[in-house]
Structure formats: structure tokens, C-alpha cells
């Protein structure tokens, strides 16, 4: 296959399959109340870090408002939804997924993809942030449905057993509560099967990410951001496994053929934080047109942690408590330094995402420490993941250009 002279974006064949997969998912969710009710399958809205394996094992279907927020961002519908929430009194300083999500409930006429299907229950785990607790409390009030919470204590240093025990106890209680709610008993074998399915998908996702250690990288960050949707919304299903098997095969083919996501790859970069959804391709083109490829990132790696073998509840408790966003600065610095070394990275870009406080507020410190430890230059870009009103084109371009000029001078 002939490589173009000018760096351009190399699309994945699997992207069409992604489109179909997500379309099918949203369609099924939209009409879940029709086909789910006769099957006695309730619909739960869950946070992205919730232990869904338990819900799936009990025949509960799951919907992810955060994923819907990303979709709204990408479709440029989030601004109007946020304004609807703000008009109802929610602060503009709140997470834009929360504002867009609440806006979509208050103004379904503004909500894309048929809006969000009404939940029968809500399940929140605060491993990702504290905002979700209040967001889901608001939703519980709006829908008058039960809210189930899993509180994962922040890991300030080492993982302590009493923290894992505390979460494990809550998972046990969650199972009891959900058994009562559904009128079904959780079969241990079914939970194990769901855990195994999660792990299979996670293993494939890790393989896919690992392929990007190759020079040149077969994938650029936008590919990872776009293709991570199923690992979130289809976690614990056979569908996710099938999806990632196919993607893994395509990426493996690229590696064998030496195909680069960014032809003439000159700089290998690391991305930190959630994507800028409303500007995904245009933003990364600023880099790819100068031969810079984002070979890895910290965000999509969040779904690359396997559940340990042994007692599923213990394993779930440990994995969901120890996600990177629930860890201190030292851990986050270590994670980035290791990625920089493993992927032979020349520079990194951190998206100071106004919405995501736990992810963003420590970035200046992380940036400084990572630069000092690796000698690799890092850039901080201020924006928001879904609220396009926060996007300022010229200042961002200016900083990105200065950063790339610096990389080019280093040679």
C-alpha cells in the first residue's frame, strides 16, 4: 500500500463497525422499556466506574450518561443542553457531562440520538469523582427512582486492605439490594462469567494499546478515544469481546504491514485527560500534520485494568477502588513516566479539562514532575471535554505551535 507524501489521517475499517455497534446499542437502549419489561429486565443508569458485572449478572441492562455526554459533545449538542441545566440553576462550573445529562432530562427535545431512556434505578460509584454523587442524587429526585451508591475511599498512598474490605462489604450489600429489587438471586457462576467477559475484552484492549509501542504507531489517540466506547458501555458482555477481537486483528495487520496512523511519524506523544469531543479530529490534526502521533494516553488506559482471579467480590472491590483517578499524584506521575518510557514518547500534552476536577486540578504538578523526571517537554492546554464555549481556538493553536516548534528544534 502506498503511503501518502503528506501526513494525513489513516481511517480504520473497524470504524464502520463501531458506528453500527453504537447505533445498535443506543437503539436497544432507547426501546429497552418495550423489550426489557416483559423480560423483567430493569434499566439502570450507571457511572463509568460502576461495578457493572454485578448488574449484568442480575439481568439488569445498563446505560451510561457519561458516554451520552461524550456523544453530545461530539455531536455539538452539549452546549444547548448545558444551558438548559444552567437555566434550571445548575452552576456553570459543574462537569459538562452532568450539565448535559441533566439538560437532556429537562429538555429531551434538545437531546440527540433519541435522548436518554428513563431509568428504573441508579447505580453510582464515586471512584471517578465526587460530582457523580450529587449528579445522581439530582437524578434520583428527578426520576423518583432508587439510588444505590458504592463509596470507594481515596487511596492517598498504598492500597490498604481495610479500604478494599469496606468496598467489598458494600458490593455484598449492593447484591442483596439488587436481588430484592429484581426479585432474582445472583448466581455465582453468572457473576464469574461476567467477570471473565470483562477480562477478555480488557485483555484485547490492552493488546490493542500495546501495539502502539511499535514504530510507527498503528493508531493515533482519536482512534483510541472513538473505539473505547464499547469497552465502557458493553463491559461484561460477549459483544464487547467480539468487537475488540475484530479491532485487535485489524490493528495487528497494520503492525505487520508497518502501516502508520500518521505517515512519516516524527514525534511520539502522550495525551492526558479526556478527549476534546467537539473538536476531536481537527484538534489532533494540528499535531498529525506535523508528523506528531499520540501513541498512548492515560484516559483509555483506565479501562485496561484486569480483574484479578479468585473471589469475584474481592477482585471487583480491589479493581474498582484502585483506578488511577482514585490515586495520589505520585501514582499518576509514575503512570505517565512509565508510559513515556514504554512507548518511547518525545513529548506529552495534558488537556486541562475544566469539567473533570480530579483529573485536571493536579495536572500542573504532574506536568512539572514528569518533565523533571523524564526530560520530555509537556504542554498544558485549557479546554473542556464537552462544553465548546470553553474552547478558545487562537490561544490553543499558539501554545500547540510553540510546543511543536520546540519538539522540532530538539530534533
Amino acid at each position, binding site marked *: 500500500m502506498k503511503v501518502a507524501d503528506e501526513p494525513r489521517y489513516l481511517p480504520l475499517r473497524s470504524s464502520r463497525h463501531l458506528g453500527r455497534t453504537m447505533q445498535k446499542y443506543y437503539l436497544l437502549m432507547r426501546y429497552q422499556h418495550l423489550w426489557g419489561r416483559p423480560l423483567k429486565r430493569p434499566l439502570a443508569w450507571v457511572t463509568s466506574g460502576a461495578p457493572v458485572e454485578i448488574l449484568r449478572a442480575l439481568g439488569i441492562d445498563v446505560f451510561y450518561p457519561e458516554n451520552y455526554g461524550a456523544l453530545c459533545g461530539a455531536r455539538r449538542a452539549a452546549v444547548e443542553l448545558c444551558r438548559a441545566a444552567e437555566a434550571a440553576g445548575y452552576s456553570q462550573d459543574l462537569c459538562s457531562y452532568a450539565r448535559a445529562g441533566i439538560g437532556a432530562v429537562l429538555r429531551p427535545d434538545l437531546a440527540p440520538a433519541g435522548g436518554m431512556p428513563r431509568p428504573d434505578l441508579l447505580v453510582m460509584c464515586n471512584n471517578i469523582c465526587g460530582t457523580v454523587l450529587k449528579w445522581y442524587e439530582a437524578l434520583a429526585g428527578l426520576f423518583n427512582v432508587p439510588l444505590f451508591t458504592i463509596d470507594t475511599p481515596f487511596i492517598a498512598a498504598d492500597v490498604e486492605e481495610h479500604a478494599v474490605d469496606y468496598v467489598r462489604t458494600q458490593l455484598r450489600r449492593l447484591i442483596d439490594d439488587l436481588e430484592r429489587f429484581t426479585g432474582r438471586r445472583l448466581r455465582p457462576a453468572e457473576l464469574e462469567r461476567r467477570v471473565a467477559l470483562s477480562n477478555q475484552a480488557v485483555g484485547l484492549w490492552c493488546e490493542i494499546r500495546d501495539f502502539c509501542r511499535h514504530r510507527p504507531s498503528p493508531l493515533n489517540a482519536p482512534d483510541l478515544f472513538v473505539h473505547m466506547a464499547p469497552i465502557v458501555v458493553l463491559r461484561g458482555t460477549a459483544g464487547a469481546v467480539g468487537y475488540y477481537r475484530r479491532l485487535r486483528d485489524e490493528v495487528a495487520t497494520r503492525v505487520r504491514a508497518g502501516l502508520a496512523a500518521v505517515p512519516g511519524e516524527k514525534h511520539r506523544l502522550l495525551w492526558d485527560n479526556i478527549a476534546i469531543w467537539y473538536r476531536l479530529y481537527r484538534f489532533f490534526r494540528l499535531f498529525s500534520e506535523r508528523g506528531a502521533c499520540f501513541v498512548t494516553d492515560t484516559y483509555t488506559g483506565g479501562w485496561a485494568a484486569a480483574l484479578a482471579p479468585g473471589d469475584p467480590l474481592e477482585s471487583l472491590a480491589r479493581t474498582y477502588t484502585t483506578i488511577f483517578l482514585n490515586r495520589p499524584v505520585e501514582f499518576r506521575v509514575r503512570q505517565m513516566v512509565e508510559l513515556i518510557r514504554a512507548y518511547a514518547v518525545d513529548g506529552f500534552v495534558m488537556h486541562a479539562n475544566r469539567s473533570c476536577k480530579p483529573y485536571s486540578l493536579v495536572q500542573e504538578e504532574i506536568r512539572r514532575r514528569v518533565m523533571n523526571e523524564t526530560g520530555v517537554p509537556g504542554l498544558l492546554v485549557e479546554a473542556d471535554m464537552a462544553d465548546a464555549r470553553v474552547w478558545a481556538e487562537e490561544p490553543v493553536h499558539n501554545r500547540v505551535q*510553540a510546543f511543536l516548534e520546540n519538539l522540532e528544534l530538539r530534533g
Partner: protein
Amino acid sequence: MDLHYYLGVDIGSLTTKVVLLDEEGGLTARAVHRSGYRGGETARRLVEELRREQGLAPEQIIRTVATGYGRVTFPADREVSEITCQARGMAHLFPAARTVIDIGGQDSKVMRVLPGGRVADFAMNDKCAAGTGRFLEVMAQALEVPVEELGALAEGAGGRCAISSVCTVFAESEIISHLAQGTPREDIVAGVCAAVAARVASLAARVGVEPEIAFTGGVARNRGVVRALEAELGRALLVPAEPEITAALGAALIARTLS
């Protein structure tokens, strides 16, 4: 044989600057003018005037680099960010400088530079022009003082009036109320300069201040701000004679390195 020249063009938010260097990198000519809303046009006109003044044929300007916000509007061999250009220009003027502070019309930036002018790290103001040239213009207008005279006025200050607003627009209201209370203009100006210096010093701390420290950009002409910044940083600053042209100078120096 016709001599060759290198052109640096800096099209900023408030002013456009052009610098012409000879083959040895010596400064031949420079010009500064208000950008207006068509910086590219202003730049073209300035270059034409300069060229005619120096009696040069167009072909004698063999390489051009454009920088500043309006850089894409000017036909140049390359457009380079003003961060890179500023670092290059200041390293040329002050080889000992390791920290460069630049306060322009609406930008304030701090760069840590390596010998030779490569940028090690930088920080800029984001979405807020408080503490920039625009801030000083607004204050000068409220005080009915030409902005060039702010520095001199600050020298006569007996005290210093604290300005608490972080927003330029609200700070203007604060100043008006101070004036109404009879606070001497000198004291208000000293407060304005101190506010700018405090803001910039915070920005500088983020990249880490390393001596020697250089200060450039249009605002560096303001002796009041220079003094206030020296007080904040506890060090004398290296200030170029013509601070507004240093980025254009850097652009011209880069033009000289292009093949």
C-alpha cells in the same frame, strides 16, 4: 553585488512590528505601527515603507518569518509562534538571560530559555487580559493619562493604592471610585503597576524563575511596571531599549537561518 536582508514581521493584537537584518545579522531598520483590524495590510505597508526608505529592491529581502496573532495573514517563508521568536530575539540581545518575561497587548508570557534561545518551558495567561497592555490602556484612559506617561506618574507616588479586582473591567470601576475619593493619581498608578507585577510574578513562578531575568514586550517601556516587577522578583531585570520589537527581531534571526 546586491546585499541580502532578512525580515521579521510581528503582527500583534495592538501593534505590528517589522525588523530588517543584514547578512551579518545586524539591525538595519525597524518600524512599529498600530495594527488596526487588518494587521496583514499594516505589515505590508510598513515593509514597503521600510524597503523604500532603505533603497532596497524587493528581491534583496530573501527570507521572511512572520509571528504574532496575525502571522497567517502575511506571506512569509515561515510562520513561527511568538514564544519561539521572543526567546530567540531575547537570547540574542541578552545571552545571559534564562527567564524571559513578555507582556504585550493582551498576552503575558514567561519563558524559561536555554543558552541559544531554545524554550525549555513556558506559561501564558489564559482567557483573561488582566495584567497585560490592555489592562494598562484601560486604566490610563480612566485616569486620563497617556499610557506612555504612566511610568513617570508612578515615580511620584507617595503611597500605593491596592487594587483588589482580578478583572480589568472591574478594576477600572475600582479606580474610578478611588479617584472620586480623592486618592492621588500617582498612588493609583503605583497600585496598577503593582497589580500587573504580582500577576506576572505568579505566572513566572509556574515555570520557575532562573537568573538572569529579562523583561520585554510593549509594557516593558513602563518604568513603573519594571520597578514593581523588580520589587516582586527581588532582582534587577534586563530590559531591551526597544522591547516591542524583540519578537520581530527573533523572527528575523530565524529567517536568517532558513535555507
